[in-house]
């Protein structure tokens, strides 16, 4: 056991790679075996995470279970891992969603082995971001996660649909979407890369806890410019990279395409975890490294967040494609995360900041649950009907009542119905940012009207209204496997809604000690 607790974080980080290796060695044509082995192996990181969760000391300040080994000596970059309450929550989310996403992928027929290997590599990339306490290592994992996601969209994405690109040539929509995802994120990371290089040159270290001290105490001139100017530029380089990933309006346009074309499990992970990487970047790097700049520009960031909330909901309402509707809802919900972060950046060291940050982190977790659930349900109905057009459904409730019930439950979680998780976190964000950005908060609460509207629109178009006769007798009920995927998500939504303390306690202590 000593080995496990000494190297716990490395075990969590690299057991997915080992799983990928095991799967890689299985015979290609044994598809059922590959699926089951992948599913079972994906529980190993989850078990380690649960062990970490229950052995984590919430009252101890700083990072726990740290590991520190020299990685790239001349640059002073180390393989430095550690967790606090914020990253712990995100790690739990990641290791929890991965087995569910793998179970959801049992309907994949094409190149199952490669698919599962990529999925495990994706899990490693995401976990690496949450675990890294070294800026360079953070960037390594940040970029690395792109590769598997690109291929998951590009190869296993929706086979229908074409996009016309300039020149009038038509390419498959999934090619377009994956390319857009990759180039968008890489272009965003470019500024981040340059800013990290500047930090490395100036501070001589990439160690995040050290940078919290040394980078902040920097004064004088850099490259012939005042330090504050350099920091402002670097702040925006960081902020834009993370804003693209979150995504914050107007950097969100890659998201509907990527979500719509990705395979179901890919969308679950994309919405459930990948978007959180951006928000996590704000929490782990932007706020602690640039407190002054963050405070100065918090108004601008808050405005973008409000626009994300309102316009995301509005755009979502306007969609006729069920998956695109859910995709835009992510823009809407992640807007609350950013609003909370902006409010906390403005009102540092107040109770409002504390509440807003609690709300933001919990909202990240909740949105991970509800978005993954929603995308999964869209996938379930798509597999049966082969359409995502909302006008193509209609009155399905009597045909598939169990699915209908689950869809309503999950939609309500997404809507923020009291009693389910989303309500708690959105309320905390609103409560925290109201005294700070009153008008922003008012407008974003009006945006919630649209949220209600698009959720109900989705439900109405799918489940209610006149029954589309086409589906009578052709539609099978949700299967036991599929219920098994969605049940843990529903239970967690309910448990956070009823008794949020079990998770808020962890988050709150971390937020108090960190900021």
């Amino acid at each position, binding site marked *: 056991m000593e080995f496990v607790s000494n190297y716990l974080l490395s075990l969590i980080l690299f057991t997915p790679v080992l799983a990928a290796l095991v799967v890689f060695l299985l015979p290609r044509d044994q598809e059922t075996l590959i699926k089951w082995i992948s599913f079972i192996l994906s529980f190993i990181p989850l078990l380690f995470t649960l062990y970490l969760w229950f052995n984590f000391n919430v009252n101890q300040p700083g990072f726990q279970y740290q590991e520190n080994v020299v990685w*790239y000596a001349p640059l002073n970059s180390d393989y430095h891992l550690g967790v606090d309450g914020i990253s712990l929550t995100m790690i739990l989310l990641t290791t929890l969603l991965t087995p569910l996403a793998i179970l959801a992928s049992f309907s994949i027929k094409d190149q199952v082995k490669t698919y599962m290997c990529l999925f495990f590599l994706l899990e490693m990339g995401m976990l690496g971001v949450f675990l890294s306490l070294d800026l360079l290592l953070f960037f390594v994992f940040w970029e690395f996660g792109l590769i598997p996601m690109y291929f998951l969209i590009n190869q296993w994405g929706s086979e229908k649909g074409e996009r016309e690109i300039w020149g009038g040539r038509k390419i498959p929509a999934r090619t377009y979407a994956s390319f857009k995802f990759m180039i968008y994120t890489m272009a965003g990371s470019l500024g981040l*890369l340059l800013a990290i290089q500047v930090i490395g040159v100036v501070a001589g270290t990439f160690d995040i806890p050290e940078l919290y001290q040394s980078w902040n105490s920097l004064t004088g001139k850099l490259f012939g410019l005042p330090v504050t100017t350099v920091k402002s530029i670097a702040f925006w380089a960081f902020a834009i990279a993370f804003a693209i990933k979150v995504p914050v309006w107007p950097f969100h346009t890659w998201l509907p395409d990527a979500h719509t074309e990705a395979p179901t499990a890919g969308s679950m992970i994309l919405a459930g975890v990948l978007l959180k990487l951006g928000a996590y970047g704000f929490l782990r790097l932007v706020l602690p490294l640039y407190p002054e700049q963050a405070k100065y520009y918090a108004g601008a960031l808050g405005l973008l967040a409000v626009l994300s909330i309102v316009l995301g909901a509005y755009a979502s309402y306007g969609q006729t494609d069920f998956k695109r509707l859910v995709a835009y809802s992510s823009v809407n919900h992640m807007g609350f995360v950013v609003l909370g972060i902006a409010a906390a950046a403005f009102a540092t060291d107040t109770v409002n900041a504390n509440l807003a940050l609690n709300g933001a982190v919990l909202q990240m977790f909740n949105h991970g649950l509800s978005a993954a659930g929603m995308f999964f349900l869209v996938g379930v109905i798509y597999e049966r009907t082969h359409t995502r057009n909302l006008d193509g459904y209609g009155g399905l409730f009597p045909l598939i009542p169990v699915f209908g019930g689950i869809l309503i439950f999950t939609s309500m979680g997404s809507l923020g119905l009291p009693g389910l998780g989303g309500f708690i976190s959105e309320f905390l964000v609103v409560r925290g940012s109201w005294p700070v950005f009153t008008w922003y908060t008012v407008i974003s609460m009006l945006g919630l009207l649209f949220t209600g509207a698009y959720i109900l629109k989705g439900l109405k178009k799918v489940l209610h209204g006149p029954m589309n006769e086409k589906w009578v007798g052709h539609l099978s009920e949700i299967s036991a496997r599929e219920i098994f995927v969605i049940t843990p998500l529903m239970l967690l939504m309910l448990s956070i809604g009823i008794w949020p303390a079990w998770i808020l306690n962890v988050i709150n202590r971390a937020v108090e000690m960190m900021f």
Partner: protein
Amino acid sequence: MQFPILSVIVFTPILAAILIFLIPGERKSEIRVVALAAATIALGLSVWAYFSYDVSVGGYQFVEKYPWLPMIGISYHVGIDGMNAPLVLLTGVVMFTGVLISWGIDDRPREFFAFLFILATGVFGVFVTLDLFMLFFFYEIAVFPMYLLISIWGWKETREYAAMKLTLYLFIGSVISLVGALAMYFSSGLGTFDMLELEKAGFSLGFQQLWFPFVFFGFAVLGGIFPFHNWSPDGHVAAPTAVSMFHAGVLMKLGAFAALRVGIMLLPDGARTWLPWVLLLTLVNVVYGAYIASVQTDFKYVIGFSSVSHMGLVIMGFATLSGDGLLGAGVQMFSHGVMTALFFAVVGMVYDQAHTREIPRLGGFRKIMPLVGVAFIVGGLVSMGMPGFSGFIAEFPIFMGVWQAQPWVAIVAAISIVVTASYIMRIIGRVFFGSLPDEYHGHVRDVTALDKVALVVLSAILVGLGVFPALMVPLVESGVQNILRLLGGA
């Protein structure tokens, strides 16, 4: 007496070339076996030399020195330090994989392998020699077989033009450098060509400023520096696969390395005067090269221009004259060498099956040759500087160095990363994914087992170095310390 490992590495290829010439031309399989045996010996010894270099001691190791023409101060003096040890290993790797890939060459394999090995001796020689005269000697040995290899076994459409262009460029470059070298020899008054002696000659500032561009640019032509780069894509494209691998993988490093060894290390004050301008030229290399690569339709030209872009980064790293930049450049020489060898191997394998390199006419090759597709993706990710692969390990410190020298250059150069990503993704999408055009159904086959070995070796090096930079970085760093010492403190 110590085992003369470097001499054995240098002369194994040429001895093998002689042996191969002694085998009758029609006994092709014996020729191949001898070639593979020699390449394996060279690779094994270079791996041994690489790993037994003692970083904690540093300096030049495995040194051998014999007088060659004592009356004018020429000696056969070889040794490796942190800068050239990776390059010796690189040459061993490229030679070994190059032989594997060329197994199927049916047109006069005897002469082909013999010339290829003479070339290899020249390359090994340049990397390990510590004598200025011997450096030129080996340099010409390396350049000359290139002409024959391209003009005889190259791509029919352009081989004569490209071979002539390449040879003229490189000869003119080397003559210009030779003039500079002779100037150093005469004005030093030491009567020796030994570079370790010349390092201490203490040339005057005016002398250094006058002669630095001769020496540096003469060699940098072979490194592909803008505006003298345009021999290189033509040469790459016209050459047969194994020669392209050698050419882009190793020969361009020869130019960059010689520019560093003779230009920067012997004339450090001249370097300080000129390198801000070099930095600008390499910026053009990096950005313009990537841009030109992105608009090519010929698969091999894309890779050819990508080399121009990446070699620009190497020289840019030199031009920063900082520890980080030099370190990155040293690693980038190795990383780019392996990566581009992998690229050209892949291009050759696709071309052998498809008989075209026009990107729009290719498609779906992943289904036919899955491993080739994976190898190209690995190479592509290295090329994009994706973290987790060796390209990142190399490019990151170069950029750190550039920040210290000229911050805005780093920002502009970073554009190349996105441009590179776009053309790499385009090739991956077009050539390896998508649907296989009808004309290839039933006509194309997967690659041979030997080809697969070569691809796996090259890919594994790129990933291994990316995950464990400590495999190479301390070594290169010890070499960088030596250069910084010559540059005077810093």
